């Protein structure tokens, strides 16, 4: 027997896709980029262990007033808790180009959803959270309203943010 890495269900040896959750039981070797998102649709419990989020540089605790920004990817249910630094880059990781965003949406089908490598940036200053589109190819939207590129637009707790077609919700505490 083997255990499904996605839902922990017991599966017969030789099973290719879990009969419970449909997740792949194949060992992921060196594959094309899109398969990297395989197995990212996990239950929330397993997710914080994924080191997909690089801590923002020098989180000034007092300046931000101890804010926690939480991003929820609506299609996968993935939640990310971020210590609010000055800037959080949202995009897709590209080792070759040396782009390592704070929030890597490549893991949530970001490529197919049209997320740019450097898509947008979230800034927290004086207790106000703003979102700025970095001339992304497919645009950034707050509650379905496209925001102009290169302009900081305020966002509030509970807003729905869309990068390309990938939808996230932001929670501020």
């Amino acid at each position, binding site marked *: *027997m083997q255990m499904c890495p996605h839902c922990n269900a017991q599966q017969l040896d*030789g099973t*290719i896709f879990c009969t419970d959750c*449909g997740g792949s039981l194949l*060992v992921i070797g060196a594959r094309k980029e899109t398969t990297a998102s395989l197995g990212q649709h996990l239950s929330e419990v397993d997710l914080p262990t994924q080191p997909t989020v690089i801590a923002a540089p020098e989180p000034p605790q007092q300046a931000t007033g101890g804010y926690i920004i939480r991003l929820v990817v609506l299609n996968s*249910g993935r939640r990310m808790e971020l210590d609010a630094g000055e800037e959080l880059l949202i995009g897709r990781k590209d080792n070759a180009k040396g782009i390592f965003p704070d929030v890597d949406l490549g893991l949530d*089908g970001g490529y197919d959803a049209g997320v740019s490598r450097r898509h947008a940036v979230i800034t927290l200053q004086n207790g106000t959270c703003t979102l700025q589109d970095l001339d992304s190819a497919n645009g950034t939207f707050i509650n379905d309203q496209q925001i102009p590129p290169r302009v900081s637009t305020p966002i509030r707790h509970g807003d729905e943010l869309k990068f390309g077609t990938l939808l996230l919700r932001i929670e501020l505490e």
Partner: protein
Amino acid sequence: MSPGIQLRWTLSRDMLPESDEQQLMYVLLEAAPQGLPTSLPKLPLNLCLVIDRSSSMRGDRLMQVKDAAQRIVDQMSSDDYFALITFNDRADVVIPAQRVKNKPELKRMIGNVEAMGGTEMATGMALALQETQRAMLRRGVSRIVVLTDGRTYGDEGRCVEIARRAQGRGVGVTALGIGDEWNEDLLETIAARENSRAHYITSSQEITQVFGDELKRMYSIFAQDVQLQVEMRPGSLIRSLDRVRPFIAPVTIAEERELTWLSKLGDWPGSDVQAFLLELIVPALNTGDHPLLRMNLRYDLPGANLHNQNSEAVLRIAIRPLESVTYEVDATVKHWLERLVAYRLQAGAWQDVESGRIEEATRRLQMAGTRLFEAGEVDLARTVQDEATRLLRSGNTTSEGRKRIKYGTRGLMGKGDMSKEREA
């Protein structure tokens, strides 16, 4: 070469590691007609169209349906039977079953159909079964084709019961739904037997194409009463059998007697390659080459006047010591399995939605999306993602999205998909 059906099988893995546990193995079984004469003597067709003429069909829809029906009459030959039933609040025999001799008159009668009233399907189907049996055919292909754009009220049970009676008598039922109002559970239940299928038509422009394809399929039928018999090695089990080509559908297979399983597969159009995916539980085996099962396909070839033909294949499996076995999976088997898993996931998701398990449903849809992406079905994957997002946000899905996903995952939608299927 004498005409027949050629069987070919592919295992998910060339060899399995020696183990003292059961292991799962996937078998892709492909069956293709071979040695068919280029011009197949066509079997006489006994076709009954059942058309919804409720008021919602008024306008373009009914016009397209009538146009498509007239084209069908044009393509039929004089040894075929044709009948037309319409239904709204009641059902009428517009054209009683008759040989297709006076085409202008038949087409004029089709042209006179007008839309009005409600939707009650069962009476229409009952009349259709009656007309189908009026035709005098010693051999041939009998079909009822039902087209509706709505929900029938209160007679769903009767519809299914009539469909079963028809199917039991070798009359297949094709259920076509147009628009996004019709009851897909009902149409799918009606079609969940051999020689039957449901199809989703998104726009009236497609009607002619779908009718034409259906007619082509019926005319190309070369094998009838096809049955798959599988003799198993003691200790092994069939976990599931699904058709994956030309479209995905679970197939009933049951242990008829100890270690012998049987499945009825109905009539086969010569235009299709049929493919099935078998999930097989392999018992603990020692290193060596072992016969695992014997497959026997039995069928009639009415065009060639050949009955009780059969094709056989013995499936062998190589067991090797663990260290010498790599975990490589056959790409074709994986491709079809991936699509099948996506189909099963979305089916599970709708059940979850019915029972109010929204999170579970969302997760399944999400995973179905992942499987479809991996299988290269990008557009469909996106539709699934959108529906998953909508479900998570609002707790609801759209009727159109659900139909697109249901029929899309099965490969039962859009011309593009059908033509791809044929080229493959």
